[in-house]
Each structure stands twice: as C-alpha cells, then as structure tokens.
C-alpha cells in the first residue's frame, strides 16, 4: 500500500513555544487512522498543519507522495484532501442546500465561473440532493445553516467536508459534544461517507476511536509516542501511563 499522508519530522512553533515537536507519521491509502492524546497535545495544530491552515516551521507534509507543505488550504483541497473542523465552521446565513452545493462547486469544475447559473446545473443540484440525503438533512435543506441544531450542524460539517469526494478526509472531533444516540448516528454517517477513502480523525471519545479506527496514533506534548492497531494501543504501557495519567490529571 502507498501512503496517503506522510509527515516527516514535522515541527511547529509559535514564537518560542514548540507545539509540534518532530512528528513523523505514515498513513496508508484507505486506512482509517485516529489521532488521540490528552488536551493540549497538539492534535488540532497537527490537523491545521496538514490541511494548510498553518504554515509548518520545519519538516514536511506529503499528500500521495507530493510535497504539500505550506501550500494554501485551497490548493491542498484541490489535490484531494478535505477536512472538517472541531468548532462548527459552516456558512451560517446560507441555506443548508447552498452549503452543500458550494462544497461541490469546485470539484464539479465550475471554478470561479460567472457564466453558469447554479439553479440550471442539473447534475450539481442532483448531487447536492444526494449528499443531503446521505447526511439526513433533506427535510431541512431550505433552513439557514445557522439555525440548525448542534447535531445537525455537525452532520452538515461532515457533509461539506466529504461532499467533494476527496480521497483523504480529515475529521476534527466529529462527535464532540454529542449525546450517545447522536454519536452512534454520526459514526454510521462517517463509516458510510468514508467508505473506500482515507480517513484521519482526532477524537476524544474512545468508544468511537476503537470502533472506527484501523490504526491509532497517540500524540503527547507534540510527539507521537505510539502508532499501532487499537488492541496493541490498548495494551501499550507507555500510552497508558502518558495518556491515562494525563487524563486523570485533567479530571
């Protein structure tokens, strides 16, 4: 199997504070990879570095063998990496339908077109309806996205990230703040829309992680201390100490 994402000695510092301290990681194509770690370990920062929101301070990020370090987010997206956000990050004043449709426009090759009329592009609208159907928001399509319930917004967030059909999908805490039943639904949704794709996710809910992931990386203080299958991670002594120790400190 070839790599989807490859990180080589990736580093990020904000002024003197080094947040990511030499992360090397190889995520294979088609793999579901989870990144876990205590609060403040740098999981979200790592996501921002891979997806282009932050510039890297050192090392490199490769997508499908191509160096994408320091490219702007839209370039990285165009190369086939799409992501969702931990804090819901949608287009609040536009309708749910429009949210999804916008996320399909670039991949449908419209680019910055001002010579197509979106309402007359049948294929685009049909595809939008399919995505809405998949994320279960068909009945809410005309509502402004800002007034959706929290769980619905999370579903939309995932929908926007996955709609474009990117080969690599990164989800930042997709189930954060959800109730049990909502979480179960979200897992189902994630499983469905990432079928056959590479999934990288940050998640706090261990149930979700062990349920979904093929491999897990544990990030502690900006360093990966272990990458392995869920069973092995569960039994890994270093992980138990570092991770659970930090968790109990939190509590």
């Amino acid at each position: 199997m070839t790599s989807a994402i490859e990180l080589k000695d990736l580093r990020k510092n904000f002024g003197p504070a080094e947040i990511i301290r030499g992360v090397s990681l190889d995520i294979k194509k088609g793999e579901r990879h989870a990144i876990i770690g205590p609060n403040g370990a740098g999981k979200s920062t790592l996501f921002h570095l891979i997806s282009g929101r932050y510039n890297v301070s050192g090392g490199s990020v490769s997508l499908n063998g191509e160096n994408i370090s320091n490219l702007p987010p839209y370039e990285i997206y165009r190369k086939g990496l799409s992501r969702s956000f931990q804090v819901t990050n949608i287009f609040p004043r536009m309708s749910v339908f429009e949210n999804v449709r916008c996320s399909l426009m670039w991949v449908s090759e419209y680019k910055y077109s001002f010579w197509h009329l979106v309402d007359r592009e049948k294929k685009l609208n049909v595809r939008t309806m399919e995505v809405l159907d998949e994320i279960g928001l068909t009945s809410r399509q005309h509502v402004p996205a800002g007034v959706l319930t929290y769980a619905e917004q999370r579903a939309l967030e995932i929908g926007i990230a996955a709609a474009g059909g990117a080969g690599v999908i990164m989800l930042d805490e997709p189930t954060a703040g959800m109730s049990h039943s909502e979480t179960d639904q979200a897992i189902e949704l994630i499983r469905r829309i990432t079928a056959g794709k590479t999934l990288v996710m940050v998640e706090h809910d261990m149930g979700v992680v062990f349920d979904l992931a093929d491999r897990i990386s544990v990030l502690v203080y900006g360093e990966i201390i272990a990458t392995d299958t869920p069973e092995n991670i569960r039994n890994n002594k270093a992980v138990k100490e570092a991770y659970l120790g930090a968790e109990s400190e939190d509590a």
Partner: protein
Amino acid sequence: MSETTNTLTGVMSLSLTKRFGPWFFLAIGLIVLPLIFSSNISVYTMNLMGIFIIFALSYNMLLGQGGMLSFGHAVYFGLGGFMSVHFMNYVEAGIVNLPVFVLPIFGGVIGLVFALIIGSFSTRRSGTVFAMISLGIGELIASCSLIFVAFFGGEEGVTGDRTMGPVIMDVDFAQDIEVYYLIAAWAFITIALMYLFSRTPMGRMANAVRDNDERSEFIGYSQQRVRLISFCASGFFAGIAGGLFAINFEIVTEENLNALTSGVVLLMAYIGGVGFFIGPIVGAVVFTLLQTLLSNYTEIWQLYVGVLFVLTVMYVPQGLTGILAMHGPAFKMKRLSVLFVPYLRMGVPTLFMLAGISGFLEIMHHVRSAAVGETSMSLIGFEFDSHGVMPWVIVGVLAVVGGIVSKTQLPQMKDAWETANAPMDSNEGASS
C-alpha cells in the same frame, strides 16, 4: 433517490410566469412610468433614480453579497463618469464615431480596470483592513482629481454635450425623456446581469466567503480571488452608473468620486436593506425621492436622511426591504388584515409625534438661519410668526402627546403582531 430528483425537477421547472414575471413587470414599469409622471421634475428624479439604482446595486455586490464594507465606492462611479464624458467630447470632436448610448460601457471598463488594480491588494483581507484601504484609496483618487487636471478638469470638472453624437432614429438626446429611456434600458440590463451574477457559482461563493471566508478555502476557493472577482464586477457596474450620470448631467466633477458620494451609496444600500437583492433598489428610490422632493420643502432634508439612517441601523438593520419581508409569513397565512387597525392606531399618533419633532426642527432652523427681521414662516400651508410662543407650544404638544399616545399603543400592536404570526392551527389548513 427518485423522490429527491422529482422534488428537484419540481423546483427547477418553476413556471415561466414565476421566473420571468418580475422582469416583465420591471420592463413594463420602466416603459410606462414617464407616461404617468411626465413633468420635468419627475423625469429628472427618475433619471437620477435609475443611475442610483445601478450604483447602489453594484455597491451591494460588495457589502451585501460579498461582505466587504467599502467607503470608497464612488471612485469607480466617478472614474466611469469622467471616462464617459471624455468619450462624449471625443465624439463631439469627431475623433471617434460612436452613438452616445454606448458610452457608459467605457465607464464600466475603466471602473473594471481600476477595480482590478486596487482590488488586487485591497481584497486580501476583508473587514476593517478592507474598509480602511477603501477609505484611503477614495481620498487618494479624490485628491488626484485636483492634481491631474487634464483628466479630471480640476475644480470645475469636465463638461460635455450629449447631443453631438450621431443621430439614430431621430434620437439626439436633447430631451430628458430620451435620456430617461436610455437610463431605463441600461438599468434593466444591468439589474438583470447583477441578479444573474448572484446566481452563478461565483455569486454563490461570494456569499460563502461573506459568511465564512476561512471555510471557503477548505472547499477549494481562494477567498481573495473570490473577493477580487466580486470587486471587479462591482467596479464595472459602478462605472456604468457613472457613465449614465455623465450623459444625464453632461458634467462630472470631483464631487462625483469623493467620500460624500461614497457615503451616499452606503446610505442608500443600507436604508434599502443589504440582505436582499432588491434592497438597494428600494434604498435608491427612497433616497432620491427624499433628496429631490424633500429638498423642495425643507433645507434640512439631510438631517432627516441622517436620522432615517441612524434609526435603520439601530432598529431595522435589515432595512426597509427587511420590514416588508417581515410581513411575508403573515401575508402567506392571509392575516395581514389583522395588522391593519393596530398599525393605524400606532401610526397616527406616531405621525403626530414626527410632525411635532420636525416642526420643532424647522422652526428652530428658521429662527437661526432666516434673514434678520424675517419672522414669518410657512409650514405645510400655515403661515405664522416663528418668533411667537404659540408655534412652539403647538409643536411641543404634538410631539409630547403624539409620543405618549403612540407609546400606549405599542402593546396592542405587539399582540396583533404575535396573533398574525402565530403558527396556524391544523384546521386552518397550514402547510408547514
């Protein structure tokens, strides 16, 4: 799946009347209006209205559609005006042979070119940075107009003569009514183009960038590129409006591109409502009416416009169109009649209060600014002595009593509003 496609084709095959109806009415309205309002002053007003409608709509491509607050939009309007008036003079001198009605296109082109140049750095950021740059550029170009006299004509501006072009079908634009139809035609075309622009992938992404510029980068779009394209389109249409202004008034001066005009277009768009496509149209119509009609009756009309703006920002940020749109649900449930009497009960004392307040302002203005010894003034047909006590008492009573009475009517209006907007019972046949 088949079900979703069905609903979709249902949405897409909107009946022809629904899709083209408004445009049909707009066209008919534009043609018929000068037959109804045929006096000189009303044709003058409507010409100005048409120009401002295009200008305000182009401004809303930035503010309402793209989330860019510009304090320097008159730059593109003014440059378009100067360019067109120069071309008008070229036509007169026989350098180029073009009919006058195509001249606004040159205004549009120079608006586009300058928008491209200025936008290439000002659209990197939205928000405060963009607003400050637009303000600075506005001042810069306005001061340039006094430096580059060859193009801007210095303080007296550049004049032209629109009647010197080739005469086509007996139209030489000597009369205002001919100019009216020229403006109306351009207005129709540009309104349609700007509306269509908002329905393209580009127009949709402009909204997306307005809502959340960061996320738009994670669905493949460069926020700067999206803003730049909106900005260029906006500059183009503002330039066309400027070109029409040049044809209409045959003079363009520094005043047409300074901060005052930039402020006016912001007022128009905001009063009309930036959240709606037709908002700026409403705003331009209301503003022009205030400007041309109100200024016939009072010297302090700008004060009233200012108050209207402040009240809009404070109480109805959705603008006048927003007030209308608020009545949509009640209208759909056929309950507008419920609101009629409460509005009347609220409206009449409010009118008295406003009459009192504006009477007070007018008398005060008269006392302060009339010639020495001139003490008689007239307000809505009443002649009186502005230095007497009685007028002050009357306006005072009107304002205070009107204010108090309208306040007592507030609760009943709120109740009526809630009744009108209450969700329907199932036996009333609600669809929601």
